[in-house]
């Protein structure tokens, strides 16, 4: 049983995804149970995988018993297990949360089981991308996750969601096809698709143009999926118009997995030695894009009035941080990047969850409408505040730890000029979250201003009308985890360090 865990991680959700619409015909809640239990099982398997990795090192699972370079290999080391835990945990939290959320955001009862089917397929694709050790397999699972993702976005209530999903589909397909083309070049030169085998065979071809072309195609393709500036145009509308639970889960997992694949390609398929053979300096290009993403994302977030779009633009900036750590090419930078993966999954998940709860109660998601909500929805807004503080990188939150490592890594590699940029972006983040926190906690709710001026302003305490428990619990748990990992950072830091050491050996 333990031996087959890597395969079960994919097989169980895939099979349940087929059953879900059938049992959903009886009652849609059954499909909710199916999805919640399945994602929980995936989470447990991910934890078991991490435990196995820590005992026996890298796991190599041979699909149907075929020996790796010929058959498909599923391989798990610290990096895979770490990303798997993030993805499956956020998928589980999203599944619990979705039950009430889709009541308002997907009203049609007949569509709900289908939502859960697509949701599971999306999770299957993402988990598969992380667990597989075969680069063509990554492409197939990437397309499974992407197609499910397009459909999830199109479920948004406004008609703009359809256009956003269409645009994402076009860009995403171009990106995936670039990836496929790059894989073709790799296969043409080496005759293998296994990542571990590629790493052995590639070095002798590092000088050739074909391998550089392969690298370029793969990285550009992944950059579209990851929404690295300036290829981020699909992202704000997609996250902005999708149902809140979809925005939360996609922001928390989709971009993380794309970042994982980028790390794998740059450090496992290719190695840092390759970057000395390229005709121009790859590291500087990535650093430039990362800095541009951090600044543009933060500035664009400032300009938004819709809170979901603001969070989406802030995602563009946060992805910049992840790319920054990847591009620094040292262990500390990679650690910063990996911790930021966890950090961004938790805080962006919590923020979108909180916004979904607000939409559930008020039906609105512009920043203006948040006035006075601190009293009406104290738990949700407390979660929002914690996540926002983590986003700005206040000490004691996990956001501080990742930014700290990124700053240290910049100084280590002699690029001290990155530190003021990280600081500047933190300040911008603080500014755009302050606008919201000010509205939430300090301003009175609309229609209550008149009482404020009267003498007996405390005549009637505002009735707390928080979101249902099935929404508040996941939101608050995820937000509290931002604090827990900020205070007790040992667990994520030690795993990230081991993963980074393996990558940059």
């Amino acid at each position, binding site marked *: 049983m333990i031996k087959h865990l890597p395969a079960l991680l994919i097989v169980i959700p895939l099979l349940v995804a087929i059953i879900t619409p059938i049992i959903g015909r009886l009652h849609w809640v059954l499909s909710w149970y199916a999805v919640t239990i399945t994602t929980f099982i995936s989470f447990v398997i991910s934890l078991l995988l991490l435990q196995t990795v820590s005992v026996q090192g890298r796991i190599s699972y041979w699909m149907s018993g075929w020996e790796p370079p010929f058959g498909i290999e599923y391989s798990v080391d610290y990096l895979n297990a770490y990303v798997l835990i993030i993805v499956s945990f956020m998928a589980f939290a999203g599944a619990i949360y979705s039950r009430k959320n889709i009541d308002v955001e997907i009203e049609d009862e007949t569509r709900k089981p289908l939502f859960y089917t697509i949701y599971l397929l999306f999770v299957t694709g993402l988990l598969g991308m992380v667990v597989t050790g075969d680069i*063509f397999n990554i*492409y*197939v699972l990437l*397309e499974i996750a992407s*197609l499910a993702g*397009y*459909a999830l976005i*199109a479920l948004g209530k406004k*008609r*703009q969601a*359809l*256009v956003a*999903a*269409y645009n994402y*589909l*076009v860009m995403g*397909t*171009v990106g*995936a*096809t670039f990836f*496929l*083309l790059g894989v*073709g070049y790799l*296969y*043409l030169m080496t005759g293998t698709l296994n990542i571990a085998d590629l790493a052995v065979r590639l070095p002798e071809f590092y000088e050739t143009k074909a391998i550089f072309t392969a690298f370029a195609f793969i990285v550009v393709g992944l950059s579209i999926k990851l929404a690295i500036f300036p290829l981020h145009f699909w992202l704000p509308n997609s996250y902005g118009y999708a149902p809140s639970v979809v925005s939360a889960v996609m922001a928390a997992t989709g971009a993380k997995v794309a970042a994982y694949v980028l790390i794998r390609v740059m450090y496992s398929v290719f190695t840092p030695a390759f970057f000395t053979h390229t005709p121009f300096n790859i590291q500087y290009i990535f650093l430039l894009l990362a800095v541009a993403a951090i600044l543009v994302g933060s500035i664009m977030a400032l300009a938004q009035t819709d809170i979901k779009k603001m969070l989406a633009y802030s995602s563009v900036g946060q992805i910049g941080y992840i790319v920054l750590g990847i591009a620094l090419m040292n262990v500390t930078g990679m650690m910063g990047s990996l911790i930021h993966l966890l950090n961004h999954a938790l805080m962006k998940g919590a923020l979108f969850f909180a916004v979904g709860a607000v939409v559930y109660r008020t039906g609105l998601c512009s920043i203006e409408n948040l006035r006075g909500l601190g009293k009406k929805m104290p738990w949700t807004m407390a979660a929002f505040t914690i996540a926002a503080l983590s986003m700005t990188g206040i000490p004691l939150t996990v956001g501080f730890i990742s930014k700290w490592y990124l700053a240290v890594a910049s100084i280590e590699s002699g690029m001290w000029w990155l530190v003021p940029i990280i600081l500047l972006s933190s300040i911008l983040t603080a500014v755009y979250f302050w606008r919201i926190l000010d509205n939430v906690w300090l301003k009175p709710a609309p229609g209550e201003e008149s009482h404020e001026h009267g003498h007996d302003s405390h005549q009637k305490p505002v009735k707390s009308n928080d979101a249902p428990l099935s929404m508040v619990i996941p939101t608050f748990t995820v937000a509290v985890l931002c604090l827990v990992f900020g205070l007790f950072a040992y667990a994520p830091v030690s795993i990230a360090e081991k993963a980074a050491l393996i990558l940059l050996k």
Partner: protein
Amino acid sequence: MIELLAKYNYWIVIILLTTGLYGVMARKNLIKKIIGLNVFQTAVLLFYVSMSKIEGGTAPILLNHGHGPQPVFDNPLPQVLMLTAIVVGISTTAVALTFVTRIYREYGTIEEDQILELNKQND
């Protein structure tokens, strides 16, 4: 020169790739964009299939149950990979066309500029 022309299959791949990508970017009609996307994906299929071809190679089938001399055959793996890619391409097209029909129902048009105009009026 002759050497370059002899690899005409790769030239066709490049022409199809750029034509497809141009279609995706330049066309305003949502269906035409999908057609461009299809051409773009087909180019990659052709790329994989043509790299698997060996001069004088036949279909990869074992003769006499694997006994005796075997003919030279093409690499079957890229062809199998492309079967998967074809399925992916079809699914993508299907999902995209579904979106287009629903966009048409909601907006009454499939011209990108008109849709953007309608979105602006709404906001």
